């Protein structure tokens, strides 16, 4: 793998080459992505916008290794992702990717602390309570660590999810409309927090949003329409 060179301004992290995604349903095949070419560089924040159904979620799920692509190539630091098998994709995710969903997706049977610890435990390492506490403190949930998801508000749950996405110190943070289920006040707080932490951890952020105001916070905005990037 390429050695990590610090302060190189435009180090390429992700490269998508002519990505196609076709989804088969029982009756027809829908071409969701129709040839996406995209480079994402280290430390930048990319906002992805577009009409509903344009293929935004599909695109970032490809980057997260969660979507099976039909054609094209994806590289992560020159490492080809497109021909990894399921297990290697899982490994790739647990090492490099933190995902935040619109619906927070915490495990209901685990406390906030346990939820934050989950990714490292899944990757077979010892849980890191210190780091998890720090993260929960950073997202403002210092006195909520032993609460279960159902004891937390939506905003709080999303903050736990953010803490969870950062626990294994991933290079890339992927967020699919992280504020879609939150009210205005909570949305602003969560977004602020997200950018703050991104900066603090030096990670790359790829963010899908409907909110033009949020998009404008990003270094770069990419618009998707009908499965293609438009300028």
């Amino acid at each position, binding site marked *: 793998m390429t050695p990590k060179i610090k302060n190189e301004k435009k180090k390429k992290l992700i490269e998508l080459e002519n990505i196609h995604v076709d989804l088969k349903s029982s009756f027809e095949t829908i071409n969701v992505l129709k040839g996406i070419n995209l480079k994402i560089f280290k430390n930048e924040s990319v906002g992805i916008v577009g009409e509903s159904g344009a293929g935004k979620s599909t695109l970032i799920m490809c980057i997260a290794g969660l979507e*099976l692509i039909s054609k094209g190539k994806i590289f992560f630091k020159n490492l080809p992702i497109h021909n990894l098998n399921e*297990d290697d994709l*899982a490994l790739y995710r*647990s090492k490099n990717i933190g995902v935040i*969903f619109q619906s927070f997706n*915490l495990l209901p*049977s685990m406390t906030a602390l346990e939820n934050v610890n989950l990714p490292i435990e899944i990757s077979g390492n010892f849980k890191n309570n210190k780091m998890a506490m720090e993260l929960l403190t950073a997202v403002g949930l210092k006195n909520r660590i032993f609460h279960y998801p159902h004891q937390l508000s939506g905003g709080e749950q999303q903050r736990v999810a953010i803490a969870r996405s950062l626990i294994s110190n991933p290079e890339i943070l992927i967020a699919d409309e992280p504020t879609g289920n939150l009210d205005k006040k909570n949305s602003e707080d969560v977004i602020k927090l997200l950018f703050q932490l991104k900066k603090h951890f030096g990670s790359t952020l790829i963010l899908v949003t409907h909110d033009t105001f949020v998009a404008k916070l990003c270094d770069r905005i990419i618009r998707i329409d009908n499965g293609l990037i438009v300028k």
Partner: protein
Amino acid sequence: MLLETLKNLTLSIRELRGSFNEFKIVVASIFLGVFIISAVGSISQNLKSEIKNKRVEMLGGNFELSTTYQEFPKNIKSWLEENGKTTHIIELRTMLSYGSQSSLKRRIVELKAVDNNYPLVGKVLTSPFQNVKLPLGTKKPEKKILIDKSLKDQIGIDVGDFVYLGKSKFKINGIIEKEPDRIFSFATFGPRVLLSTQALNETGLLKAGSLIKYKTKFIPNNKNKINLATLNDLVKGTNVSIRSIENTTNNFNNFVDRTSIFISLVGLITLLISGAGISNGVKGYIIKKTKNIAIMKSLGAKNSKVLNIYLNQILMIFLISIIPAIMLGISIPYLFSPIISQELFNTFEPSIFLQPISISFLYGFIICILFTILPLLKTYKIKPIELIRKSSENSLNETSYKIKGIIFILICILCVLTMNLINDKKLSFYILISITGSFIFIYGLTNLKFYILSKIKFRLGTTFEYVRKAITKSNSFARSIVISFSIGLSLLITLNIIESSLDKRITVAINQQAPSHFLIDIQPQQIEKIKNIALSFLGETNFNSQPMLRGRITELNNQLVQGIKVDKEVEWVLRRDRAFSWSNKIPKNTKLISGEWWPKNYDGPLLVSIGDKIAKGLNLKIGDKIKFNILGRSFEAQIFNTREIIWENMDINFIFILSNSNIENAPHSWIATTKNVGQNLNNSFVEKIVSEFSNISSISIEESYKSIKSILNLLIIIINSIALITLVSGIIVLAGIIDVGKKDKLYEVAILKILGATPKRVAYLWFKEYFIIGLITSVISLIIGFFVSYVLLNYVFNIEIYFDFKMICILTLLVPFLITIFSLLRMMGLIMSKPLVVLRSYF
């Protein structure tokens, strides 16, 4: 490695938190199966060790020598008395009369007359307790007897009462609490009555030709010098048969083995069916956990990790359920020891054996893993992308060969274990084949149905079209529902058909074919008188009598039977005394399979007619020679024909019927049956005979049938309740499926409502969807149920298929209604929901 396991374990426990309730059915299933196997195993191990410890006492000596009809030759008797301790016993059946002199009642009993040496080992215990070796009071004038408790309970006579046996009057001196040389204390033909040989001699019941057993129990002085071979030498050429403690224990062990195989089989089937319950429970559980699994995968969990997490949970559940199951299983002998002591052994001290524990553990473990791993493999199919939308058909479809290998190995171990448990290769092979067959059958049939349903071309109206699409769409759970319910339902249907066929057979037999009573020990000089009485009471065709004598087969085609290998199923024919009859007239209702009957006036060398299946088992055919020893004399007969013997008709069925040549001069007795012409008439006829001829005993067939039937019923109840449990486990799967699909359905309802459907209409659509799924289940189960019961009835029970149409209809409609009502109730909230609220809050 260990650390890894530990880490996984804590994760599993955390994931399990709060969902413990979901495992109720899994726990119940494992518990039930393992409990039955460990309980049966413990009981049979305990019985066997008990037999081993008490075998001398149970046989009443180291050897038992016995003859029927005749006493031993004097020289044998005196040799035994010189060379060891002996006690001589006479056993016969007779009618005991009781009640007031003017209206005596009668009951068949088993007499056992003993001498002063009895018993050689152990002690006869009576209540009230009498501290004498043998409380029979030989002093005249009062003759005393001891009776079984069952006799006291049945006819209400008690200590101090007077009864009659033959010509003599006896006083009941006590109730037998313990008769040492008796393995079973339950009655065979009648309850036991103990008396002294001297007293028996005076009753006048010892008549030549009556079925009387003479037994001598023997403990040699020098056990090293005198063994079975010595005794065999001694009795050579006589009709004395010998039992030693070895072959007695073997026989009894065989009996215990056979019974425990049968019950273990029920346990195994329970476990397999519980396997279906386990599988269903786990399936439902995994369905409910779909989202959690997707989340973990999105966080980087590999498939194997997910499998590991849930497998760990199942293992914990397994341990939790198996420990109490085994504990209860091994405590069963303790719980039942009073009953076993009373019914089987006189004293029974249970203990704990390792083998049943390990076997039930192993069985439970393998079944649990086997039936868990398949639904757990479904977790491989769950894609993290489902967190943002319903998964499409895109998938990598990875199946692990490692896991397939494990499944294969587990199945092999299971087969080996079963073979080991059943101990009969042929039987276990059939069982394994039929079990696998049924599973494949259910699976294949379900898929076929869905295939047909998805290929229907013609239009059947829009609602049906909607339902058809809903059921056959690729990610529909309909298949799971069908498979989950089919197992239980087909079992219920099979059982129902078998039960009603057996029932029908028995009632028909009792009402028409089977005799109502047996009369035994009729003396040759009495038979003509009895025939005349029968003529006036019952008419000629309703009374059937045949002469009978007993003898042993010594040689087949000039080869000693000891050295001949025969089919296991007919071995019993050679083992002990058998009953013979003779007739130059072809007996009523005889169906010849090969050969023909000898002429009516035949007077040549001895010929024999033999049961066809027995002949085949003994590798005999027409023209072959059989040598018998009857009352010490040898006879050789040539096989002239073979007959079909239908045991179930409960009539007189002689395996061997000889030609008239000379045999009729041997001491013999007659046996007779009466056909049912009306209960009162039959009863008064039998009453007349047994009161007039005190040596004749009667046996009622209806009572025998009743006891068989009650055992059968118990079994059917047990298996039925297991089948019901499977149905309940089906409901669990259904609940899981409905809960997972709720969100989609909610959306569907909202749309349907916005498009103008009333709640009634929505409910109707769903009703149809689930009802059709239920009907598919029923049809599949009906096919399987009829097929399996037909095969069983035809090839195992040998009786005609019969079913109760109403019951089958009820069973058929049970599942569709169960599924429909349950799912509708579960979704009531959805149907009544306000569409706009739903759309706003969910999408």
